[in-house]
C-alpha cells in the first residue's frame, strides 16, 4: 500500500501567513498538490513582521522559518510569491483560477545577496527581504524603482532583469482556501483617536516595527519625533474595533498584543511608564492570563478601564494629551503621554478578485462568512483569532478540502 497517489487536481491556498503555510503543509503531507499564492515577496505573513510573540515571548521568526522552509522544499507545494488572484470561475466540476504574478525584477534563485546593487541604485529601491526571510534574497520595490537599470550591470550573477513583465498563469484547481489574514487599517476617519496628527501616534503594528529587535532601532524604544526615549506610552485598546462605525468585531489579538508590547518596553527600559486603556482585558487563551498576571504584577504596567474620549497633540508643548474618564475617581482627566499606540483596527485582507461569480461572500462585518458552503477559509480573514487558533482552523480547512466536503 504505497503513499496515496496525489489527488489529480491541485488546491489553491491564498495567503502565505501561518494559516496558509499550515494548510499547504497539511495538504501536501496528506498527498494533495498545492499552489500557495502569496502577494508579498516572501512567506510568513503578518507574524514574520512581528518582533516577539505572546504568550511565550519567542522571537517571531523562530517558529516560522522552519515551516516556511518546509513549504519551499516540499515537492507537492508550488509557491507563487508577488502573486495575486485575478479571477476564479467555476467550470465543470473544477475552478479555473487566474493568478497574476507581478514582475520580480530580482530572481531569488540567482541572487547571492552580495548587495552590490544597493549602492548602485539611485532611489534606494532595493533592500533585503527582512532579517530572517527565506529564501534570502534582495528585492526591488516596484513602486520606488525608476527602471534606470544601473543595478543590472553591477549584478555578478545577472539576477536582475528589469524588463520582466507581469505574467499570469491559469490553474485548474479542485478547491480554494482563503487564508489571507489581516492588515493594518488607517483609522484617521475616527478623528478622536488623532491618528495622523502626531508622528508618535501610531498603530500597534507600526509600533512593533519601530521597536523591533531586528528593526532599525534594534529593540530600543524612542520617539519618532526626536529619537529620544519616551517617558510614558499609552496603549489604547479597541481603537476602531468593537465600534459600529468601523469594525463591529473584537480583533481578539490586541489585548494580549498590548500586554506583550508594554512588557517588552518595560523589559528594555524599566523607567518608561506604560498605561493600557482597555474595555475588556481579553486574556482567555492558553496561558494568557498567567502572562497578564506576570506583566501586571511584575513590571508595574498600569491598567485604566475605559476608552479615551479624545487624543490630540499638546497645543503648547510636545507630547500627546489623552482625555479619558477615570472610572475609579469618576472624573474626567487629561494625561500627557510621549507616545500613543492604537490597538484594534485590524482589517481582514481579501484578495481583490474581480467579480467572477465566485468572489468570496462577505458577511456584514467584511469577514469571509463561514456559513457559505463553497468558500473554505481559515485564519483572521474568516474570524479574528490568534496564531494557535488560525493554525488549528487551517488544518481543519485542509481536511475539508482534502476529503472534498463542504465546510
Amino acid at each position: 500500500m504505497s503513499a496515496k497517489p496525489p489527488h489529480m487536481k491541485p488546491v489553491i491556498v491564498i495567503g502565505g501567513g501561518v494559516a496558509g503555510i499550515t494548510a499547504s503543509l497539511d495538504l501536501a503531507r496528506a498527498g494533495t498538490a498545492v499552489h500557495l499564492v502569496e502577494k508579498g515577496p516572501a512567506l510568513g505573513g503578518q507574524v514574520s513582521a512581528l518582533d516577539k510573540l505572546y504568550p511565550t515571548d519567542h522571537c517571531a521568526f523562530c517558529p516560522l522559518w522552519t515551516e516556511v522552509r518546509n513549504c519551499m522544499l516540499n515537492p507537492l507545494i508550488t509557491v507563487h510569491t508577488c502573486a495575486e488572484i485575478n479571477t476564479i470561475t467555476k467550470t465543470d466540476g473544477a475552478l479555473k483560477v487566474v493568478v497574476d504574478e507581478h514582475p520580480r525584477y530580482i530572481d531569488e534563485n540567482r541572487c547571492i545577496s552580495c548587495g552590490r546593487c544597493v549602492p548602485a541604485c539611485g532611489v534606494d529601491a532595493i533592500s533585503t527581504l527582512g532579517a530572517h526571510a527565506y529564501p534570502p534574497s534582495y528585492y526591488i520595490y516596484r513602486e520606488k524603482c525608476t527602471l534606470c537599470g544601473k543595478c543590472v550591470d553591477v549584478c555578478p550573477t545577472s539576477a536582475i532583469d528589469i524588463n520582466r513583465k507581469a505574467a499570469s498563469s491559469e490553474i485548474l484547481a479542485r478547491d480554494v482556501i482563503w487564508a489571507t489574514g489581516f492588515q493594518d487599517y488607517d483609522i484617521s476617519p475616527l478623528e478622536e483617536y488623532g491618528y495622523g496628527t502626531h508622528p508618535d501616534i501610531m498603530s500597534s503594528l507600526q509600533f512593533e516595527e519601530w521597536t523591533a529587535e531586528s528593526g532599525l532601532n534594534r529593540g530600543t524604544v524612542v520617539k519618532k519625533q526626536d529619537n529620544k526615549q519616551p517617558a510614558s506610552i499609552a496603549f489604547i485598546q479597541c481603537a476602531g474595533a468593537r465600534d459600529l462605525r468601523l469594525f463591529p468585531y473584537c480583533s481578539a489579538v490586541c489585548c494580549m498584543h498590548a500586554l506583550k508590547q508594554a512588557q517588552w518596553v518595560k523589559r528594555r527600559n524599566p523607567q518608561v511608564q506604560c498605561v493600557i486603556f482597555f474595555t475588556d482585558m481579553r486574556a482567555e487563551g492558553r496561558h494568557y492570563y498567567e502572562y497578564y498576571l506576570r506583566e501586571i504584577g511584575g513590571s508595574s504596567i498600569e491598567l485604566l478601564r475605559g476608552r479615551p474620549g479624545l487624543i490630540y497633540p499638546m497645543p503648547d508643548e510636545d507630547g500627546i494629551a489623552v482625555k479619558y474618564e477615570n472610572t475609579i475617581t469618576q472624573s474626567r482627566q487629561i494625561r500627557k503621554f510621549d507616545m500613543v499606540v492604537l490597538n484594534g483596527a485590524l482589517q481582514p485582507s481579501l484578495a481583490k478578485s474581480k467579480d467572477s461569480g465566485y468572489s468570496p461572500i462577505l458577511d456584514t462585518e467584511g469577514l469571509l462568512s463561514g456559513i457559505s458552503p463553497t468558500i473554505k477559509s481559515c485564519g483572521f480573514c474568516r474570524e479574528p483569532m490568534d496564531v494557535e487558533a488560525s493554525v488549528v482552523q487551517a488544518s481543519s480547512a485542509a481536511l475539508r478540502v482534502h476529503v472534498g466536503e463542504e465546510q
Partner: protein
Amino acid sequence: MEDNKQTRCFLCECYGEISDVVDLESIRKGLEHHPRIVSCEKVKSLCLEENIDELAKRIPLSPESRVLLGACSFLARGDAIITGLQKRGIDPKHIELVDLREGCAWIHRDDPASATKKAGDLINMGIAALVQRNYSEDLTIEPKQEVLVIGAGPAGISAAASLVKLGITVHLLDRAKTPGGLLNLIKKIAPETDGTPQHVEAFLYTVGNSPLVRYYPGSRISAVRGSAGDFTVEFTSGSDVKSINVGAVIIATGARVNLPGSLYRYKELKGVITGIELERSFKGPGMKVTSAVFIQCVGVRDADRPYCSAICCPVSLKQAIQLLEENPDAEVTILHRDIMCPGSVLEDYYRKAMEAGVRFVRYDQDTPPGILGAEQVEEIRVYDVITGRERRIDAELVVLSSPLIPHDDAARVAELFDLNRDIHGFYEVRSLMHPLETTKDGVLVCGSARWPVLARTAILQGEAAAMKAFALLNTDQLTATQISQFKERKFSLALVDRQACTGCGNCVAICPYDACSLEADQGAYKSTVSQMRCTGCGSCVSVCPNGSIQLPEQNALLIGEMLKAAFS
C-alpha cells in the same frame, strides 16, 4: 584515520565576495597534498543552477565519496547547493559545508591575512568533521493505519468522524457509557448562531454508522507502549481486557465542571445554583423566573486557579438569553470582571444578549458581590466599578458560572503517555505552529483536555488533530529520521555502546523525550535508545560519564578533532 573516504573539495569565490578577502589559492595549495583530500578546485560560484549541474558531474555517486564545500552559510545559499546536489542523487550527509563568506570573509574584511588563516582553520575543521562523521542507521516501520481516539466528547467525535472521512480505522474509547461528553448535559450549544449543533449531529451519525469506527464505551486504559506509528494500548472495556495496535493517539478526554464549594453561599442558600444545574432545568421542566443574576469567574482567575476558563462567559450569555426567551420581562443581570467574547462570532453574541435585554454590571476581584437572604436568596449587593456606586439587585435565582478544570484521572493518563502537564493540570502541548502536538510524536491532544474551549473550537481542533495524525500515517514507510515535524530530517539518532555502558541512568534521567531506557542484561543494566522517540538533541551524550552513548553524526571524537583543528 585510514578509512577509504574520498573527499573532493570545492572552494567558491562567490564572484569575489570571498576571494577578495580570503586568499583561496593558498588554501587550495595547502590542501593539494592533504592525505584526506582527493582533489581541490576553486570555482567562480557554486550555487546557481548551472554550477550545481557542473558540480554534480564531478562527484562520483559511490558511498565513499565525500564533498567539502567552502562557500557561504547554510542559511544563505548553502541550503540551495545541498538540496540541489541532493536532487542529483548525492546524499546530503556526505556533504560538509564550511561557511567562508558569512562566517569569515564578510566579517573580517579589514584583516585579509587573519581571515585567510581563519578560512584555512575552518576548512581543517570541516575535514575533521567529514572524517570523523558516522551515520546513524535509520529505523523504518510500517505505520499502523489506525488511530486511537480517547474521549467521545465534541472533540473526540469530530476527530473520529474526520478520520473516517480520511479512510483511517478509528478506535473510539470513552470512559462514559454514552457519547457526547459535556454536550449531554446541555440543551443548546453556545453560541447557536453558527451551525455547531448540525456538525455535532453529522459527526455522531458518522461515528455511529461507519464500519471504520470501533466504539468502546465505559472503558479505561491500563497500559501504553511503543512510539509514533506503532503504539500498543491495553484497556479494559466492561469486563474483558483488550489490546489494540495503533499508529497515533488523539487524546480528547475533555474536562469537568468545577463546583464552587462554599463560595457565594452555594449549597447553603436556596436559589444559588451552578450553570450546570440551570442547564439541567432547561433540559427538564424549563426555568421561569422574574429576576436572575449570573456571577462570572467563580473559583477561577484567582490565586488558586490563575487562568481564564474562556467558555463561562459565552455559556452565561446563552443561558441569560434562554431565561429571557422563557420570560421576556424577566430581569437578568450578569456580574462580570471582563466579558471574554473575542472575535466576531462571540462579539455578535455579546451584542445579541444586550439587545435581548441582559444587563451587565462589572465588579472587581477585590470587592466580590454579596448574597443576601435567610433560606432563599433575595438580593445581591455589588460595587459597580463603572459607576462607582454599590448596586442592590433583587434576585430569586443566582447562577454561579464556574470554570472547566482537568479531570481527576488526567494525571494517570499523562503518566501512561509520558505527557507533561502545565501548572493548572491541562496537558502541555507545543507552542504556536504545533498547538495540538505534544512532545511525544504521534500523541495529539485536542478539546478541553488541552485548554477549555467551546464546542465549536473543540470540533475544529478534532478535525485538525485528525489531519495531523493522517499526515503522520499517510505513508507506508515511516522512517525514524523523518518523524520530526519541525524539520524534514532529524539530525542524528543516539547510539549506545552496550559494552561500555555502566547502566548509571544519567541518559534516562535527562532525555527530554524519554527515549532512553535501561534494560537488564546478564545482571547489569544497559541503556537502550528508542530511535523513534530520539530527536537527536544530544543531551544524553553530554551527561554520559564515559561517552558510551554518542550521536554518530556529531560524536565526541568529531568535536575533539574540530577543537584541535580550530587554531592549528
